[in-house]
Structures are given as C-alpha cells and as structure tokens.
C-alpha cells in the first residue's frame, strides 16, 4: 500500500524492495542514532574487512548504474583512472537541478549518513584520497542535515583519520554551490569546485576520471549512485542483481509530477516498472487528475524528448527508451493532461535552459535565447507560420541532423533514436531545443492554430501604393 509521511513531504512508500529509502519512514532518519540502529555503517565495516580491489570488483559486477542522468556504470567509471597517478579525488554531485527531478535532495535531507557511508566505500574501493560533497546552493535544509551528520560521523570515528581504527583515512569536505544549473555537468562542477565560473570543460580528450579536479584523476558520482553502496555491501552482489533486470539492476528513485492524482517520489524496481505502472498504477500515481486523458509526458527530466500514450508500456530500461527516442535521465516524469497548453508548457522548459546557459558555446548562448524569444512570440499569439520553421532551423544549429523523437501511430511517425549530434560542449543547448522539437513534432496543430499566416504583399500592390503616394505629393 502507498504510504506518505508528514516528515518527508513528496516521498511515497510502498510494498516494494527498498534499497535507498529504507529509513524514510522514521522521523529521525537523519540522526546517527537511528542510522546505527538500522544497520548503519555496517556496509563500511564489511568493505574494510576485504581488500579494496575486491570491493571495486563487487561494484562492477553489480552494475550499479549512475543515477545522475547518463546512466554510466559506476564501477566502470572508477576503473577509468590512469594507473599510478596520485592523488585521486571523489566529487559528489549533489547539485540536483534538472527540472522535474528531486531524489538527491530527499536522500540528503532524510538519510545523510547513508550518503556519507557510500562516499567512504567509494573512496576505499577506488583509492580516492579526498572527497568533496557538493550540495546545491538553494537547499538549506539538506546542507544542514549533511553538515550535522558529518560532524557526528567525524566525532564517532567514521570519517577522517584511521576510520574504525584502520589504515583507511579520508576527509569528506562539505561544499555548497550558489545557484547555477550547468554546474550539475561534471566538468562544470569541477570548475566551480576550483573556485571558478561553472563552465563545462571541453571533452574529449580529457574526462574527469583522467584529468579532473586540479588536473588529477577525479571520480564524479551522483548522490543516489553512492547511496546504493551501503546496501550493496550489506546484502551482496547477488541480492542486488536479483532486483530489476540484468542491464538495469536494483531500484531507482523517480519523481512523478504534474497532472497525476498522487504525485510523488517513488523508489521503483529498475528495468521492469513501466511508465503505465507508474502513471496509472494504484500503488503509484493512480492515474490522471479528474479522470482526464493523458496528453504527453516527459520521461527523464526537462532535457528529455517527450512521450505520449503510445510509449506508456516502455519499462525503465535505457536500452529500450533510447531507441524509442528519449532518455531516462535523472528519474523525473512530468505528466501533462488534456487541458495542457502545449506551446506554453514547452516554453517553461525552453526558458529554463536559455536562462541557465553558461554562455560558453555560441549555439547554446544565442540559440537558446532565440528559441525562447520566438516561442514566446508564438505563445503570445504574435507569431507567424514562418516562426515555426525558424524554431526548427535554430534548433538544427544546436543539434544538426535528425533530432530524436517518439513514434506516433496517429501522426504516422516512426521513432528517431536517442542521442542527438550536438555543436555544444554540454547538454544545456540541446535541452533548450528538446521541448520545442517534441512539442512541434507531436502537437504541431496547436502551434498552427496559434500563429498568423504570413501575408506576402504582391509587388503590384506595393507599386500602386507608391504611385498613390507620388500622386498626392
């Protein structure tokens, strides 16, 4: 049965396996006392009782997928650091700002010790000698909870010098951002952590695992990814891979917002749960509000191309959602019902990405702004049919070639698979175009109903006006 808790607004519990939200039901889940009473820091002890390389192998064979957006396996990422280059760092990406997404904030507010334990296990396994925990600036309560938890954990000997009396020593440094979406991109995060403007670095040639913070090998992992590790250490690889599918094992947190009856953050089984389960299932959102029809949904955060009812039976499995024309991203589903003004909804997202462009790459800096202005003109009823073409042309300068979109039976569309080509370093630019492209591809008639036909004035008409002007002069 679905259950909510006053102390954890947004989180909806259910009778499903819980890997990262197991303590959310306790009002004091963020304290060391509660953490220790519920298997806390046992995973760390288990990890330290074995050689570091074995722990790394466990994370690899469990295929713990990155939960930040790209879905890259954490164990593989850790293995990309060059041999014998020291020191190596861990940077924890808690700069969660993708529209529709919030799971990392809940994990930091509700179970900060689980995250700390995950950081320690990662540092031990991958030989990372200092950890920086970067929390989004606008999350004051998460900062407080993690700071308090770190202070407790340091005092109790779980973090710092000679952890649990062993030869393993690592500092976890708490760091706050100051409001910039693009800093969620890992190289921008590193720039920000170095005290600079948070602009992404060009890659390749260098990925952070090879050349990151201060030019050293750096692993950047998402909060939810690391929060999986204590459970994995406590229960073992076999128990972890027994949940979900072979390519997408375990669980993942998904926030479902918008026009559903019971919006919330759910921990779902990876790989098998479908969008239909999530949006219409009684144990999840229970359908669309007021019994309305579903119009469209964003399957993986504001950057993801949109789906319609045709894609409801797809599971949370990257190898199926990608070919269908979108991505799972950061675990955020935004649902629009039949009453939604589609061009206006797309505008809220395009405005977001245009606003958050860091300005480094021209196609994003200029293109995002153009997309927003043209779209706003259309939404305000001042656009012409030429503007719709213009939107696609500007988008093609950010993403040349076919842009991914879903199939649609009624419109006779076949899917164009994810990903896209891009002329920018990071995904902010393409993300400004994604909602425009999806909305225009799937709901073009709504745009056409809104724009004026461009009137071409015949040359003869102009010359007759000119003649009149001349005649009266």
């Amino acid at each position, binding site marked *: 049965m679905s259950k909510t808790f006053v102390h954890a607004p947004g989180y909806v519990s259910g009778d499903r396996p819980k890997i990262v939200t197991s303590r959310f039901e306790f009002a004091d889940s963020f304290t060391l006392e509660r953490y220790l009473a519920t298997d806390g820091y046992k995973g760390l002890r288990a990890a330290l009782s074995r050689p570091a390389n074995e722990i790394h192998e466990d994370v690899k064979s469990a295929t713990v997928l990155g939960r930040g957006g790209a879905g890259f396996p954490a164990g593989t990422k850790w293995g990309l650091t060059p041999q014998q280059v020291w020191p190596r760092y861990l940077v924890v990406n808690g700069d969660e700002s993708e529209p529709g997404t919030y799971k990392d904030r809940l994990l930091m507010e509700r179970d900060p010790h689980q995250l700390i334990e995950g950081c320690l296990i990662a540092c031990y396994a991958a030989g990372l000698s200092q950890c920086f925990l970067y929390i989004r600036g606008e999350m*004051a309560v998460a900062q407080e909870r993690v700071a308090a938890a770190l202070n407790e954990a340091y005092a109790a000997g779980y973090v*710092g010098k000679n952890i649990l009396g062993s030869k393993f020593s690592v500092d976890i440094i708490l760091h706050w951002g100051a409001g*910039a979406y693009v800093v969620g991109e890992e190289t921008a995060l590193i720039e920000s952590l*170095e*005290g*600079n403007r948070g602009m992404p670095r060009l890659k390749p040639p260098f990925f952070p695992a090879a050349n990151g913070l201060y030019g050293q090998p750096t692993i950047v992992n998402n909060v939810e990814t690391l929060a999986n590790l204590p459970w994995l250490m406590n229960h073992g690889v076999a128990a972890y891979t027994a949940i979900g599918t072979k390519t997408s094992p375990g669980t993942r947190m998904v926030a479902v917002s918008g026009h559903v009856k019971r*919006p919330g953050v759910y921990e779902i089984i990876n790989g098998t749960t479908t969008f239909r389960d999530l949006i219409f299932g009684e144990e999840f959102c229970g359908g669309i509000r007021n019994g309305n029809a579903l119009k469209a949904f964003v399957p993986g955060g504001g950057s993801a191309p949109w789906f319609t009812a045709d894609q409801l039976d797809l599971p949370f499995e990257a190898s199926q959602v990608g070919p269908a024309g979108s991505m799972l991203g950061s675990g955020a589903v935004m649902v629009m019902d039949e009453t939604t003004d589609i061009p206006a909804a797309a505008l809220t*997202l395009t405005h977001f990405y245009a606003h958050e462009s860091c300005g480094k790459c021209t196609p994003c800096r200029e293109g995002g702004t153009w997309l927003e202005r043209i779209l706003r003109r259309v939404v305000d009823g001042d656009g012409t049919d030429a503007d719709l073409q213009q939107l696609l042309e500007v988008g093609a300068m950010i993403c040349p070639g076919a842009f991914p979109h879903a199939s649609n039976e009624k419109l006779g569309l076949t899917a164009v698979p994810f990903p896209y080509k891009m002329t920018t370093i990071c995904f902010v630019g393409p993300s400004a175009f994604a909602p425009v492209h999806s909305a225009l591809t799937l709901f073009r008639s709504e745009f056409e109903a809104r724009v004026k036909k461009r009137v071409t004035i015949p040359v003869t008409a102009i010359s007759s006006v000119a003649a009149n002007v001349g005649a009266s002069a």
Partner: protein
Amino acid sequence: MSRLTDANTKLAHEIIARYPRPKSALIPLLHLSQEQNGYVTREAMQHLGELVGVTSAEVYGTATFYEMFKFEPVGKYLINICGTMSCALMGAHDLMHHAEKKLGIKAGGTTSDGVFTLAHAECQAACTEAPTLQVNYRYRLRVTPADLDNLIDNLRDGKLKDEFPPHGVLSQVRQTIGADRAVGAKAPEDVNESPAWLDGKAAL
C-alpha cells in the same frame, strides 16, 4: 562592516585549509560574506581575494556567475517562486501574480520597507509538491494564494523568524573537523604515493 569580521576571518582560514588549493574556498567564503552583510560587497570581494590569493577581479568574475550572490541589498526575506514546468502546470503563474499584488511590487522588486524581495525562480527540486516557493532557500510546498497571504503576514509580523533566518544565512549548521580527526588537505603536487589502504590487504 564590509570586510569579514575577525571571527569570520578565522573561520575563513579554517575553510581554506580544507582544500588542496585555496581558491576552491571562494564560493563558501562568498556565502560567508553574504551571511555577514546580507549581500556581497566590493570590500568583501577585495578581502576574499587577499585571503585566497587571487585578484578582486577574479573574485568578482566567479561571484557574478552565480544566481545566489547579490551585489546590492535585497529584502530580509527573499521570496523565490518557482515557474518551471511542473509548477507552471500547477498554477505557478497565478501564484506569482497574486504575490505581486499582495506585496505591491513586481517580480524582481523589493518592498519600500526592505522586508521582502520577490523573484522568479527556476526548478526548486520539489516538483511533486507544486507550486512551490522558497523563502531564503527554505521551502513552502503546495502553496495556495491564501497560504501565501498568511506567509507574508506572518513573516512581516516576525512570527516565523526561527524558521526563516534573514537573507544571506544559508545552512545554520557548519561543518567542524576536530584537529585530531582531520586527515588534512595537501596540494596535489605534494602527494606522489598511492593511498596506504591500497596494499592488496583488508584495511581492518
């Protein structure tokens, strides 16, 4: 009172010492100065540059990139109303219009008594509880126009000052690392060996 106070300067040195390179402390220190003064002053940026060993122009360059740093005074309570997709779908625009009417200012403005600044904000990571707002980066969820009226009245009457510290104060808990527990940060060039626990044996 624009440069950091003696107590805050001491704290700044502690924060700087946690990083392998001093400039990494810049954003935390900008927050510290904003906490002290309510906004980031020129003198503070000069001081921070001295503390981390960069020019004040570099401090300014970093600071101006980030939305949360303000360079002129803002209201004691900064009300950020989210307008991104999930909130927009649930009535954020009406909420903003209501707030503008209630406060008698436009988004981006500050009330003449200096108590409130109203601003548009982007996704606040509470999308299922839309529409949302933050007062000094602390949440109010599923906000109705009546909730907003109450909130503003209560803030003005000083009834919520424990829940919402003045603008500039972010986390009210600071990380403290005891000298006996700290590993300490070394510049990367001073570390050439693999960590002690990578000797192929269990650490415990």
